[in-house]
């Protein structure tokens, strides 16, 4: 626990040198070391600073902070471009012992201009901590100009961040790629995305977009359409590149090391892409005949057309990643075999089993009872080649309230069943599915039975005849904050139907793991990995994605892929493994959970809406529903971004 000696956040001062108390925590729980054995001495951020150690090198730290601000300044506006340079040079002179007293005044007045007149949040915030430090610790700066030579130096870890970057599991530089769209540099924008995310077209369509939920523009009017902008640049460049039909250049495997990846889902693909870029030979083994994992065989085509996935995978194979389809670990391959042939192995097999609802008659597995993920997998693999045989019947009941349930219900509508109902045990408000998905399903004619819980599958001669449900009421909130549904006694009722699709969750199949392999699973049915390195209990064997986190989202799996590639690379090069430094800083920032400053700016620009195919037209096929942004819309949308960049700096012992 890091105890604050002196600090300020949003002008709220904590002074434990024996003066003033405040609402800001006196100590940050869980914050002590940067990495093990390396204590954090101080923090400088966008709304203030904290000293945890009396000997923190104040002036030199301010210099490092402003130098970082200058390095991160995009150069667009005058005050930040020139001002931070002047302040950085003056602080460097102070730190070297060449500073003069008038420099202190010049720094102070110039800092105020940078804060007040810059264009984006980087300039608005880069001087806050410095100004506060000069106010609360004038003596430190006075000493530096007293002619006593250079000040004490320190060690720093600094980076530019933004709320949306912090929220994205892959930590995509969102403002930067949005800004490139604003300037019309689409190629550059896609290259920025590609630094962290090789599946821009996929994410640009179906990402659950945690970034948009924290977007600060929401305070003024509405969040930036980060997802749609990603799709926009991807589609612009893909059509441009395919017009030239020039493949990417193959990256040579210069490291002399090779990696095996099990599962061509988002996690495996991401890891493969970055391992290849780092110069390793990479082989992906995939059970199915096509890549993409759940993005291909879970998500239906009307949300994510399969040619989007195939064009992104083509780019991954163009750079030299080798794909081996129809190869299942545990059937065609064994872990020990892979371990002898490869320098490192990644298990990214996802979660493809279906969790049971816990209703009576489920285990008998009557005809017409089809797990949601199985239904969607068969549909996705076979429908487009005309070989899909839909479950026989006319009435469908889907159980569950998440996106998978919505995908099942909306697909069922498209297959022409006469009635499709969703039963969910809470109300619409508690549904975990995206509200766009729920509204879309309603428009398409899906019936919703809320506060309804299935208790029994009624079957006759091994065939589903219907489902018995009870009515629910919302009781006390549970651990997740959602009100727990309780059964209304004697409210049983029967719904006649031929097909029941449970879609309440997925689980992984680890039958390929033999006991004594050293690879542990958790009580949640996931693979246990070291949080720092993503390595399992077995040396050189790593794991990531849904099979580690439990069913999550694409971008979570891709964030894993990125991190695991980092550590696999370190392991193969024989370096000490540890998570990327930026990841460590993001976690420290999360631990500190500093209060956000309100956005004090002028707004009044709504986000661009996407055009959708009308419900009547779209329910008879699996063609994509949403149309992308047009260039002028995309540029207008990109212009709305506030560029909430800010610099975070930790002063550490080493």
């Amino acid at each position, binding site marked *: 626990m890091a105890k604050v000696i002196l600090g300020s956040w949003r002008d709220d001062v904590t002074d434990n040198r024996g003066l003033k108390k405040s609402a800001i925590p006196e100590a940050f729980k869980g914050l002590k070391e940067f990495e093990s054995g390396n204590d954090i001495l101080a923090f400088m951020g966008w709304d203030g600073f904290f000293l945890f150690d009396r000997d923190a090198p104040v002036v030199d730290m301010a210099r490092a902070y402003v130098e970082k601000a200058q390095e991160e300044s995009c150069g667009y506006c*005058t005050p930040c471009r020139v001002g931070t340079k002047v302040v950085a040079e003056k602080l460097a002179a102070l730190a070297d012992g060449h500073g003069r007293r008038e420099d202190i005044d010049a720094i102070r007045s110039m800092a105020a201009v940078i804060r007040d007149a810059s264009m984006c949040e980087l300039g608005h915030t880069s001087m806050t901590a410095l100004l506060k430090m000069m106010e609360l610790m004038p003596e430190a700066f006075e000493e530096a100009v007293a002619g006593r030579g250079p000040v004490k130096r320190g060690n720093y870890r600094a980076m530019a961040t933004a709320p949306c970057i912090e929220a994205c599991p892959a930590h995509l530089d969102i403002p930067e790629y949005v800004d490139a769209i604003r300037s019309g540099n689409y190629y550059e924008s896609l290259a920025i995305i590609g630094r962290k995310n090789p599946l821009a077209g996929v994410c640009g369509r179906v990402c659950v977009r945690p970034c948009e939920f924290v977007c600060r523009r929401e305070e003024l009017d509405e969040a930036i359409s980060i997802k749609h902008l990603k799709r926009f640049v991807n589609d612009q460049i893909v059509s441009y590149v395919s017009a030239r039909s020039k493949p990417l250049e193959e990256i040579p495997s210069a490291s002399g090391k090779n990696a095996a990846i099990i599962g061509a889902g988002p996690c495996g693909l991401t890891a493969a892409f970055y391992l290849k870029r780092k110069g390793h030979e990479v082989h992906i083994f995939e059970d199915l005949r096509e890549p993409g994992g759940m993005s291909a065989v879970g998500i239906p085509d009307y949300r994510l057309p399969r040619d989007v996935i195939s064009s992104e995978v083509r780019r991954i194979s163009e750079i030299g990643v080798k794909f081996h389809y129809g190869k299942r670990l545990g059937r065609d391959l064994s872990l020990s075999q892979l371990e002898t042939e490869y320098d490192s192995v990644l298990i990214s097999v996802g979660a493809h089993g279906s969790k049971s609802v816990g209703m009576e008659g489920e285990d008998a597995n009557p005809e017409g009872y089809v797990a949601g993920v199985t239904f969607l997998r068969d549909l996705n693999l076979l429908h487009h080649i005309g070989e899909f045989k839909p479950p026989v019947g006319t009435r469908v009941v889907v159980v569950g309230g998440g996106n998978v349930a919505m995908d099942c219900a909306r697909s069922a509508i498209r297959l022409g069943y006469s009635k499709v109902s969703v039963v969910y045990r809470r109300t619409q408000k508690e549904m975990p599915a995206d509200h766009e998905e729920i509204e879309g399903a309603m428009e398409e004619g899906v019936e919703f039975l809320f506060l309804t819980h299935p208790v029994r599958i009624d079957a006759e001669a091994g065939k589903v005849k219907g489902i018995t449900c009870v009515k629910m009421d919302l009781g006390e909130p549970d651990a997740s904050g959602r009100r727990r549904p309780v059964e209304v006694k004697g409210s049983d009722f029967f719904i006649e139907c031929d097909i029941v699709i449970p879609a309440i969750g997925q689980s992984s199949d680890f039958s390929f793991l033999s006991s004594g392999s050293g690879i542990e699973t958790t009580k949640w049915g996931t693979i246990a990995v070291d949080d720092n390195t993503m390595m399992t209990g077995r040396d050189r064997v790593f794991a990531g994605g849904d099979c580690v986190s439990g069913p999550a989202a694409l971008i979570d799996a891709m964030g894993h892929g990125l991190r695991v590639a980092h550590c696999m690379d370190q392991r193969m090069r024989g370096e000490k493994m540890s998570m990327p430094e930026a990841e460590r800083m993001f976690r420290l920032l999360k631990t500190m959970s500093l209060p956000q400053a309100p956005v004090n700016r002028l707004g009044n620009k709504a986000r661009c809406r996407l055009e959708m195919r009308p419900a009547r037209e779209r329910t008879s096929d699996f063609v994509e529903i949403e149309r992308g942004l047009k260039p002028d819309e995309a540029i207008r949308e990109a212009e709305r971004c506030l560029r909430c960049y800010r610099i975070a700096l930790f002063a550490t012992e080493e």
Partner: protein
Amino acid sequence: MTTIIETKKKVQLEIDGKTVLAPEGATILEAARAVGVRIPTLCYHEALSPIGSCRVCVVEVEGVDRPATACNTQALDGMRVVTRSERLFNLRREVIRMILAHHPLNCSPCPKNGDCELQDIAYEYDLAPNDFGSYSIKTEEYPWKEFSTPILDYHPRRCVLCGRCVKVCKEIRGLGAITMAGPGALASIQPALADPESPSRCVSCGECMRVCPVNAIEERMGGGKGKPWETEKTATTCAYCGVGCSLELNVVNGKVVGVTTDDAAGVNKGRLCSKGRFGYAFIHSGERLGKPLMRNEKGELEETTWTKALTKVAREFRRTLAEHGPDSIAGLSSARCTNEENYLFQRFIRQAIGSNNVDHCARL
């Protein structure tokens, strides 16, 4: 006093105590100009969408702590705006000072001297070179880079990074051949590449040079262009093609040294293509024909007078007409003639000669 700008939907706001009715979507700057309130600007250019990079146009808006830039902030209903205050004066002055801290202050040899927007605004804010002692930053060493076109030279040290050139190339030229790239004080204007392998999209139109407020983009046609006050501007029409753009020939001591334009004039409203803007070197070329030439008996070309030459042409036309009829004569005119001249020319061939064999080179 209430000033009304004509459109349908309006917002009402107050600027320096004056009530303004501005069309919805107008910026604070536009609203202020409509009531005669002058807000200083540098990066703003009327022909372009707002850029918002220089930060000279800051104003205070009631209820918002941080000053807003008038050029790109929308005027909203009920807004109260102050454009002059001590705080704003200081902010503007400091911002201009920062720009100058990066700009060489040797105006006397600069061809823009006297016609430079940076000079004007520095003068307005009473900034002179000796005000920079404590601010000047270390000279940045820019790696030499070819600008987007061989016709133009770009000088990063002189550039104030207003971003007009980037905007004009995108919005008016429609190309986006250049972009601004950091980091920080090392930022400069660079070619924007569609992808690393494709060549620059620049077509050398020089629009970027035209909107540059300083002398950061120069034509590479040689120096000695004269100072603005010794330059005489003659309004004329470009002779290269049928668009007929208006331009001004800049003449120093009887010599054409450059081409400028007037934003308000002609069909082109200040725009030109590379031929109109840079294709003037031929005017003083020694290889141009100054007098008519006629073949003598030996078949050699010899200088003569217009009267003699035209008399000969007329005589030969008559003879050919008499001996072979009008269809034996054809006329080919030049794209460098005006529409009116071309019209007269075809009338001449059709009516005076009586031939329908008339055409035009149609391109250059």
